[in-house]
């Protein structure tokens, strides 16, 4: 029982990383209706910018805020420059455009900041929480920040006119345009917010996985898995999904004899697929009913 408890806590700590990323994934899904493969690399690039600002002597929180603002702007620019021209193209072509963006960001970051591993500071410190060894203050801080972001998003989408306009633009662009919502700018805003959330996620993840151009590969994959498991239409579901992926992964590694250690990723993914077979729109997602 104690082993189980330990593994669940460790899973929660990992899950916080995935939940952060899953939140950014859901954000972009709300704006453009499919996934952005370059999301992880965008977050990585933002984190490098924050690192660079700190290397030039800025204090943590100023660098943090600047990086978030710059990421937001960069997200809007990417929407206007890159996504706009292919918006009418088939979805697969858009996905290839994202793969291209992935490749460009990854390679440029490697060229500018090289591939050596850098450490990234954390404002929460690394002391163990409650005197135990299970979870440290940084991981607790990460969980806290994720939940705060989730709450802010909830308030934004449910409580503000802009949030309502964004939801309308995503759900039904034609009708939204008819009632005077500028759908194009709502999409751009979605890109900006996704980039900003990604930046926060990147800066929280970097102290754990260390900063380097390929740091987001695994994280993004788990983030996708978490978002899809939780349901791509629900931010809270995505966060829950992210935590669930972390816990499932850890438990599979510990409790499945023989196979567990080596194949824990495989088992985690198989379990997710099995869950999806019974709930095809994710655990908390809305069922999409299409009109014939």
């Amino acid at each position, binding site marked *: 029982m104690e082993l189980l408890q330990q593994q669940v806590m460790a899973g929660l700590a990992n899950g916080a990383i995935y939940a952060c990323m899953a939140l950014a994934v859901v954000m972009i899904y709300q704006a453009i209706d499919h996934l952005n493969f370059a999301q992880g690399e965008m977050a990585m690039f933002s984190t490098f910018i924050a690192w660079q600002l700190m290397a030039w002597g800025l204090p943590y929180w100023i660098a943090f805020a600047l990086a978030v603002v710059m990421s937001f702007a960069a997200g809007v620019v990417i929407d206007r420059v890159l996504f706009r021209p292919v918006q009418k193209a*088939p979805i697969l072509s858009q996905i290839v455009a994202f793969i*291209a963006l992935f490749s*460009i960001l990854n390679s440029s970051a*490697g060229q500018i900041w090289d591939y050596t591993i850098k450490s990234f500071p954390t404002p929460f410190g690394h002391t163990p929480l409650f005197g135990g060894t299970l979870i440290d203050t940084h991981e607790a801080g990460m969980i806290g920040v994720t939940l705060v972001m989730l709450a802010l998003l909830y308030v934004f989408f449910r409580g503000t006119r802009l949030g309502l306009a964004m939801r309308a633009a995503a759900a039904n662009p034609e009708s939204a345009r008819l009632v005077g919502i500028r759908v194009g700018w709502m999409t751009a805003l979605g890109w900006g917010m996704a980039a900003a959330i990604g930046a926060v996620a990147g800066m929280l993840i970097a102290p754990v996985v260390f900063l380097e151009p390929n740091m987001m590969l695994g994280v993004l994959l788990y983030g996708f898995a978490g978002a*899809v498991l939780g349901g791509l239409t629900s931010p809270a579901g995505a966060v829950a999904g992210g935590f669930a992926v972390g816990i499932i992964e850890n438990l599979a590694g510990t409790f499945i004899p023989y*196979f567990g250690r080596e194949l824990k990723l*495989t088992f985690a993914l198989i379990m997710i697929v099995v869950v999806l077979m019974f709930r095809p729109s994710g655990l908390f997602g809305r069922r999409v009913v299409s009109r014939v």
Partner: protein
Amino acid sequence: MTSVPKDGIAVPQAEAVSAQRPLHARLTTRHLIITGTTIVALLIPLAAPGFMIFPLTEVMVYGLAILGLNLLTGFNGQFSLGHSAFYGIGAYTAAIMMHNYDISYFWTLPAAGAVCFAVGFLFGLPALRLQNLYLALATFALATAMPQILKFHLLEEWTGGVQGLPILQPDPPPFLPITTDQWLYYLTLGVILLMFAAAANLVRSRAGRAIMAIRDNPIAAAAMGINTSLYKTITFGVSALYTGVAGALSALVVGFVAPDSFTIFLSISLLVGLVIGGVGSIAGCLFGGLFVLYLPNIANSISTGLSGAIYGFILLLVIFATPSGASGFVRFARDGFSAPALDRARFLSVWFGISTYGVITLLIVKGAGLGKSSPLIFWITYTMIILGITGWQTIMAVKRLSDMRRSRWWGILLFVPPLNMLLLIALFCAKTRSHDTLTAI
């Protein structure tokens, strides 16, 4: 071939009638192109230097794998990120048969196909319940799991674990005076001719129409009495079969299999090839293969440090120029020529597309390394490509000039570089005036 109704959409008519007509009347440009390409492909290994044969064989192997993905995604509308797994299963089937059981390489191809068909069919069953991104995630799980399963310690006896397995490459038959590379090239060429022809027949058959109907509207397809579940799982199996045979061929060609050759990045490469070649086009798959194999080399030769960025940049350029891939672009350009009047947007995009593909073809020819070993053939190819690009562009411009009711002789300006730019701008800005005779149709 196609008639142009009032709204300018070309409708193929020939296919329905062609069955009754005599053979010589049924031969179309398409047949000529296929025959010509096959003859060129047969001659290449005899004329080209030895080091070029291996990559060209790989191009064909990738083309076959992309065709497998295309049957599933392009024709049946099921998205897959898991084809690297089928490719890996095919390669490992061949390697295990040859390395552990000493079976002749010839039998590995059908065996790999059969194994992959079974695996694909079984995977197609749970995939029935999943759509779009959820299916992408499930297939993605397959792709990430595959290298780990291949490395798994209990299977090491067969798979060779992290080390992988070496394969003794097949010798050419003793009566043929050719090298192993050339023999593998011809073997691959034979296999892909057979399988491309089979795929072309499949998509034109009753089953093929059912497969495409499911893509276009699953509910309507089911209402018309198509057993959608059966067709979807079988398509999954056939798609895996194609990719599996490609994997087995790759094992023979490379002479070695290792788990880390079959990661998710292979799937992504296949997806890129699929989109660049054209979703739902059979011939486009080979173009996709060419692109997937040579583009990283080109990017690397331009700048080693920034090769990823250059790769991404070229990819973006191609997607901007031709959002529906090479085959879509060919169709688009052809419709442009047969349209009553070439409007400015279509003129610009066709022009842009021809230039982009032209530059990429030039880069591929340069990257293939022909320039060093036989400069004469290299320069002849180069000149022919450049003449081809400018030729098509001139034809476009002349058509546009005539649509604007200008003298076609203005087109000569295209060959004077500074005036070329001015003429282009003029061509783009001017308003199209359709011919009275054509608008009357």
